[in-house]
C-alpha cells in the first residue's frame, strides 16, 4: 500500500493538528475561517489545555499548529507553549504579530521546539489591510523585524492567496528572503467569514493557473500545507507534498471550547466529531462516527470519470460544502471548469454554525477598510485600549 493509501485510511494519531486556542482576536479579517473576534466564555481552562497536551504527548502528536483568533492574547499563552514543548509536543503558532515584541522574539529564537507563523495577506499595506484591517501590515512587518533581529531563522510568513495578491508572489518571496523567513502560501476557503467574501476574493481561473505555474517553478522552498491539491488536476508538473485531503485522517481541528472538527476549514456541525471534554481527544480521534466514515473509501461521484480525478481526488471537502456543492462533486475551483458549471445550479449554501465576529460593525466590510472596535468598559476584546 502506498503512503497516500495508508493515510487515506487514517492513522492512530494525527501527524499534526490545528488547535485554535481562542476565538478572541484584535483583528476582524474579512476571510477569517473561524469567524473570530470575541472570546467564547466556555473556552478550555489552562488546566484543561494542559490535560489535552498530556494526551497529545501520549499519542505522540509531533506538533500542534496553534491559532485562533489571535492565540497570543490568551493570558496563559506562553505558559501553554512552554508546557507543550516540555512535554515533547512541538508548537507552531500563527499570529498577526501583535505580541511579538523584541523580548518575545529573543525568547522564541532560543527554542528549537517553537515555530512562528506571521500572517500577511498582501505584499503591500494596501492589499494586506484591505483584508486584514488598517495597521495590520505594519504590525506584521514589525514582528518580522523583531524576529529577524533576534536571529530567528526560517520563521514562516503565511499568506492566504486571493485575487488581489496572486500577482504579488515574487514580492512575498522577496519579503521572506529579506527576513530570513520561509514563505508559506495557502488556499482561501469559503469558511467562516470567508463564505461571505469568497466571491470577491477567490482567485480567478487565470490566476489559479498563474499560481500553479509559480508553484511548479518555485515550490521547493515554499510551503503550502498541501492546500492546493485541487490544482494537481493540471497534471503538468509535480506539486510538492502528498496532495491529499488529510481531514479526519491525518489532521483535525480542536477549537477553543474543545470541539473536534475534521479540519480547520470545516467548522460546522456536519464536520463535528465530538468534544474533548466528554470522552477525551483520543477516543474522538479513534472512535468517532464521523472520522471513521472519512477513513472509509470515499466515492468521487461524477468526478470519478474525469481523467484528472486521480490527481485532485475531487478537491477540498470544505470548499465544496460551504459553496453549496455536493461532497462527491467537483471542487468549486476545479481546474477543468466543472466547479463553475456546478455552482451555476446552486441555490443556497450552508451557513457557518458559529460566529464570534465582533459585534456592532458593518457586516463584512469588503471594499472599505475596517474601523477599530469601540472601547467600552465591558469590551470583551482582550486588547481593548491597545494602540499600535
Amino acid at each position: 500500500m502506498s503512503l497516500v493509501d495508508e493515510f487515506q485510511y487514517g492513522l492512530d494519531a494525527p501527524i499534526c493538528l490545528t488547535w485554535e486556542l481562542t476565538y478572541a482576536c484584535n483583528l476582524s479579517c474579512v476571510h477569517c475561517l473561524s469567524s473570530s473576534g470575541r472570546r467564547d466564555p466556555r473556552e478550555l481552562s489552562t488546566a484543561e489545555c494542559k490535560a489535552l497536551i498530556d494526551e497529545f504527548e501520549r499519542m505522540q502528536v509531533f506538533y500542534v499548529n496553534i491559532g485562533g483568533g489571535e492565540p497570543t492574547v490568551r493570558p496563559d499563552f506562553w505558559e501553554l507553549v512552554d508546557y507543550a514543548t516540555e512535554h515533547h509536543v512541538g508548537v507552531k503558532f500563527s499570529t498577526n504579530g501583535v505580541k511579538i515584541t523584541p523580548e518575545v522574539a529573543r525568547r522564541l529564537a532560543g527554542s528549537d521546539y517553537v515555530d512562528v507563523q506571521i500572517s500577511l495577506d498582501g505584499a503591500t499595506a494596501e492589499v494586506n489591510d484591505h483584508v486584514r484591517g488598517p495597521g495590520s501590515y505594519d504590525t506584521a512587518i514589525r514582528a518580522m523585524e523583531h524576529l529577524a533581529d533576534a536571529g530567528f531563522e526560517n520563521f514562516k510568513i503565511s499568506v492566504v492567496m486571493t485575487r488581489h495578491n496572486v500577482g504579488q508572489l515574487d514580492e512575498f518571496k522577496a519579503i521572506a528572503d529579506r527576513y530570513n523567513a520561509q514563505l508559506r502560501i495557502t488556499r482561501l476557503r469559503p469558511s467562516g467569514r470567508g463564505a461571505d467574501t469568497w466571491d470577491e476574493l477567490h482567485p480567478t481561473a487565470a490566476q489559479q493557473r498563474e499560481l500553479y505555474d509559480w508553484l511548479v517553478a518555485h515550490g521547493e522552498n515554499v510551503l503550502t500545507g498541501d492546500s492546493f491539491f485541487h490544482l494537481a488536476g493540471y497534471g503538468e508538473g509535480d506539486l510538492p507534498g502528498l496532495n491529499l485531503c488529510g481531514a479526519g485522517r491525518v489532521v483535525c481541528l480542536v477549537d477553543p471550547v474543545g470541539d473536534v472538527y475534521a479540519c480547520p476549514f470545516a467548522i460546522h456541525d456536519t464536520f463535528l466529531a465530538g468534544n474533548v471534554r466528554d470522552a477525551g481527544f483520543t477516543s474522538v480521534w479513534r472512535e468517532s462516527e464521523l472520522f471513521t466514515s472519512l477513513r472509509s473509501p470515499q466515492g468521487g461521484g461524477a468526478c470519478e470519470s474525469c481523467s484528472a480525478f486521480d490527481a485532485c481526488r475531487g478537491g477540498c471537502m470544505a470548499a465544496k460544502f460551504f459553496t453549496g456543492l455536493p461532497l462527491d462533486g467537483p471542487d468549486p475551483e476545479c481546474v477543468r471548469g466543472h466547479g463553475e458549471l456546478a455552482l451555476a445550479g446552486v441555490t443556497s449554501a450552508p451557513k457557518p454554525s458559529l460566529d464570534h465576529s465582533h459585534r456592532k460593525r458593518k457586516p463584512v466590510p469588503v471594499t472599505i477598510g475596517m474601523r477599530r472596535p469601540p472601547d467600552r468598559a465591558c469590551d470583551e476584546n482582550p486588547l481593548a485600549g491597545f494602540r499600535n
Partner: protein
Amino acid sequence: MSTESFDLDAGWRLDERVSIRPERFGALLYHFGTRRLSFLKSPALLTVVRSLAEHPTARAACAGAGVEPPELPRYRAALAALAASRMIQPRSL
C-alpha cells in the same frame, strides 16, 4: 547526499532532535530542528534506524535487522535520504 556517497561502513546515529512514531507501514519521523517530516516505509528500516547507534557501522545495523545483501542498495538509498535531511548523523560529528 547522494546514495553513492553514503558511507555504509561509518558509524551513524539518530539526531537527538528526531522523534520516531511507529506505524503499521513503518514509522513517521519528525525533526524538531528542521521541522521536517519523513517516513520509514518498512518495519525493518525502522529497526535499522533505531539500532544505528548500537552498531559500529550502518552495514552492521542492516545485517542486524536481517537485511539481505541484495536488499542493501535499497536500504543504503533510504539511509542516504535520511542523512540528507539530517535525520541521522555520522557519529564522528
